[in-house]
Each structure stands twice: as C-alpha cells, then as structure tokens.
C-alpha cells in the first residue's frame, strides 16, 4: 500500500474550482513532484494534503489514516512535515532555535516539567540541541546556527525551513515550491539536500512551478492544469507528454502577452 493516497480531492472557492477531483499515490522512499503552471491549484492541493485547508470533497490517507478533518498540528505529529511557499520561520530565533522548535512534535517537555527542570527534560533538551545541529549541517547551514532567521539570505532560509521540518522526524516531507527565488547554485545544493534526505529514508513530495529541479530529482511527477490532473509518470515521459507541453506553452504565450 502506498504511504500517501490522494483520492478525488476537490476544493472550491466560491464558484472557482481550484482543485478538481485529483487522485494520485505517493510510495514510500519516493521523491514525488506535483507541477503545473501558475494557478493550476498546486498550493491549494498542498494545503489540503497537509490538513491546513479542508477540501469540499475527497480523501487523503496517510499510512491508511484519514488526514482531512484533523487538526494540522496532529497531522504533523503523525509524521507529515511541511514547508511553506512564503517561508514561515521564527524570525527572532536563531537558525539553531528554529530547528529545535521543529523537534516539538517528537519531544515531551511541558510547562510543569520545564519549570521544575526535571532531569529528563535537561537530557531531552541536550539531545534536541545536538540533533538540530546535525540537521543544520545536513542541509549545509552549520555555519549559520547562531544567526537569527531574519538575518539569513533568502535561499538559505528555504533550507533552514527544510531542516526545521526534518526535526519532526517525518516519514513524508512536503515541500511547497522550495526552489522559488533560488539561483542556479542554490537550486543545485537544494537538489543535493533532497537526495540526502531521501536516502536517509524520508519520502518527499515537492510542489514546484519550476521544471528544472523537478525533472532532475523526482521519481514520479503529477501534472496539474486548472485544477485537474492532466498527466502522471516518470520525468522522461512527462517531458514529452503533449498535454503537459500544451499547458506550459499556453502559459508562455500568456506571459508574452
């Protein structure tokens, strides 16, 4: 059985159908990409899959359990971590603290235990600090640990958000347009980080506008256009798919106008 099953997800905003009966599977250990031109409904679908938004219809099963209708922080705790298209970092906190906050889902210290500084909370804190340092190095941010998030360059902020999501030890990591605003070198190091994460056993779903990164890293691609799935398959087939070419060409023509 696949790790993540999206079944007939439909999301309407007023009269607009942003996502129209979309279904696909994500298998364990895959890097799966969801692509499509602007306004294809990628981010809406992404928010539905992570329980940050509710669809009008359809179902999302994660490891066999329904995601829709659950409170999003509980979905995170069940093993689904995400990033945001507009990074949602904790600007006043250092990179290291940001990643430590990401470990919230897999740690226990509450107010009372913390106030009393119980011995196990001290151990837990030490472990979280070490793990956060390791994750920062994994995404190549070891040097930035003590820098407040607000002072970090744009490209590195995206990597920091990925490290923070990994701190929740997710089984599946969902990335919302991780390459947006990155230059070529940054995109390359992002791709490397994705391979390392996948090889460490985390399934990855990437929602992406940019074709370059997706064609390189993903095992399988789902293509959306105007809310509908128009193609699904490995990158080399998707590249040649006439419907996909038409959808992206249409966008280029629109851009030229």
């Amino acid at each position: 059985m696949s790790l993540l099953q999206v079944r007939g997800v439909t999301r309407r905003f007023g009269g607009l159908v942003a996502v129209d009966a979309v279904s696909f599977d994500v298998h364990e250990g895959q890097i799966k990409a969801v692509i499509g031109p602007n306004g294809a409904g990628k981010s809406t679908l992404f928010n539905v899959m992570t329980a940050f938004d509710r669809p009008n219809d359809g179902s999302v099963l994660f490891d066999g359990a329904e995601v829709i209708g659950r409170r999003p922080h509980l979905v995170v705790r069940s093993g689904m971590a995400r990033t945001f298209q507009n990074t949602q970092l904790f600007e006043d906190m250092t990179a290291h603290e940001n990643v430590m906050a990401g470990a919230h889902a897999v740690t226990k210290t509450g107010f009372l235990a913390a106030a009393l500084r119980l011995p196990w909370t001290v151990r837990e804190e030490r472990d979280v600090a070490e793990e956060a340092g390791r994750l920062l190095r994994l995404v190549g941010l070891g040097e930035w640990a003590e820098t407040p998030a607000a002072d970090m360059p744009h490209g590195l902020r995206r990597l920091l958000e990925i490290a923070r999501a990994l701190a929740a030890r997710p089984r599946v990591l969902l990335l919302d347009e991780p390459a947006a605003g990155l230059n070529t070198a940054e995109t390359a190091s992002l791709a490397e980080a994705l391979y390392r994460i996948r090889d460490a056993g985390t399934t990855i779903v990437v929602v992406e506008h940019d074709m370059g990164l997706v064609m390189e890293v993903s095992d399988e691609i789902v293509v959306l256009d105007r809310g509908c799935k128009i193609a699904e398959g490995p990158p080399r087939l998707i590249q040649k798919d006439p419907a996909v070419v038409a959808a992206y060409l249409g966008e280029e023509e629109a851009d030229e106008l």
Partner: protein
Amino acid sequence: MLGRPDIRLVVIVAVALVAVFALPMLTSERYLLRVFTFVGVNVIIITGMALLFGYAGQVSLGHAAFYGIGAYASAFAVINLGWPWPAGVALAIVLTAAGGFLLALPSLRLKGHYLAMATLGFGEIMKVAFVEARPVTGGPDGLSGIPYPAIGPFEFDTAGLAYWLVWGVAAVALLLAYNVVRSRAGRAMRALHGSELGATACGIDITGIKVRVFVISASLAGLAGALYAHVVGFVSPSTFSLHVSVLLVAMAVLGGTGSLAGPVIATVLLTLIPYSDAVIPGLSRSALETIQEWQEDIYGLTIIAVMLFVPGGIGSLIRRMAPGRGEAR
C-alpha cells in the same frame, strides 16, 4: 541554553537578589518596605504577563480581575471558612486558573486578538461582582482585618517579614518562568508569536499553548492577590479596577518581548510612580499629587511610545547590550 550559564548574568542576578533581600536590614522605614512589598506583588503578576505578552504575544486587559479574585478568595477562605492561609492561597490559584481557562478557551481558538476584548469584558463584570457580592467581598467598603499570612504557627507579621515572603515568592516564580522560557515550552511560545503557521507546521498546538500560558498568568495574578490581601490586611474593589489592568499591560509592554528582566525593571519603575516620595527624599506633597494626577496619562503614553519607538521594550535594549546573549537563548 546548554547549561553554560553566562557569568555576567549570574553576577547580575546574584547582586540583584542580595540587594532585594537585604533591603529590610538596611532600612527600618515601614513606608519604604510597604512600597517595595507592593512592587514585589506586581513582579509576581508581571512574571505571568511577561510569559503571556512578551513570549506568547497575547494581550490581557483583565488581569486585575484575577488579582482581585485571588485576594477575595483567600481572604474569604481564611476569615469566613477558617482555613489556614496556604489553603486560601491554593483556593485563589485554583479559582483563577479555572476562570482563566473558561475565558481563554473560546477566545484563543481563533486567530485575531479576541482575548483582549474578552478579558476587558471579564474585568468589567468582576468590577461589578466585587461590589455586588457583599457576603463574600464586603461590597464597596471591602474587607478589612484580614489576618497576616501564616504558615503553621509562623506569622509574617512585620513589614520586613511580609516583604521577604512576597519577594521570596516572586523570586521562585521568576526562576520557574526562567526555566520555562528556555525550554521546549518557551520555544513553542516564541514560535507561535513569530508565525502561527510555522508553529503549527512544527506540530505545536497553538491554541493549547496559548490557553496554558493564559491559565498560568491568571493563576500567578491570583497568587499575587492572595499575598496582597494578607500582607496589606485590607482589600476593596478599587484595587482591582481596569486602571490596574492597563497598568499591568503598560509594565509588560515597556518590559518588552522575549525577556523576563525587562518586565521586572518596568514593573519597578511604573509601580514606584505613584509612590515617588518613597524613593525621592524631600519630594513635595503637591509634586507627588501632580504625579498621581497624571499617572494614567503616563501609563497610556508609555504604551503608545514604546509600541512606536522601541517595539521590543526594555528587553530588546538589554539584548542589544549583551549581543548573542539574550536570556532566552
């Protein structure tokens, strides 16, 4: 963060502790001790407000009501029910925690700052209740003859002992709060203040954390009330007015975000304003009256000025003086 205490911080805290606890041995002036006891009571309340406002980014305009509930509950339990004082304190804490929970749960489930308005409303209701519930509160005249705090046979029956009791409790409250802010729970508060979406994506139950912080801050106000009533020996509704709630907001705002030391400093400064004569020798009576006449303007303008010119309050100034060594780091 990793258990390496900053030596400068340790020295400053140690000096402050010695200075605070030595005061009754340096002066025998009862008025001065009284005023600083009152400062200590406010420090207990502000410890909770610092967590609520400075870390979790929530505003309460009703903390005077929790302060009052704590005061009346403990006084009533000791006078009318014959309970020992510690039991009165426990009642104060339980009642204010329960009240805080009932108020916070609906108000904090949503985005937006509904808590501020709900607490303002709660404060206004309690203002009426303190006057109307005569059998418990003594009505507009209040309750007098409240016995001194006592633990077993030991009574805190002098100005010096009362001062030590209050500041002892304040020091413990601050220590516990300090442990919280540099823990997972403290990070969760700062995280949801920074970005609610980001915090949710970390698996943080933002409503749960906000409700917990509010309950903690409400019960600290209740605890402060239970100390105040017995130390002063008299309570009346005017001590728990909206004016006091706004004063507490002014302290929290001036104290700033992400800091405990800032709010404590702000509390000392703002609490002393109406008692300037205790710390400025030879202050004329008319000058004092002028200060008291304008104190609400001072609070209001302080709030506005801080939000416009130093949004991080005193806390951010402290962090600037010790770069990379913020107390929450």
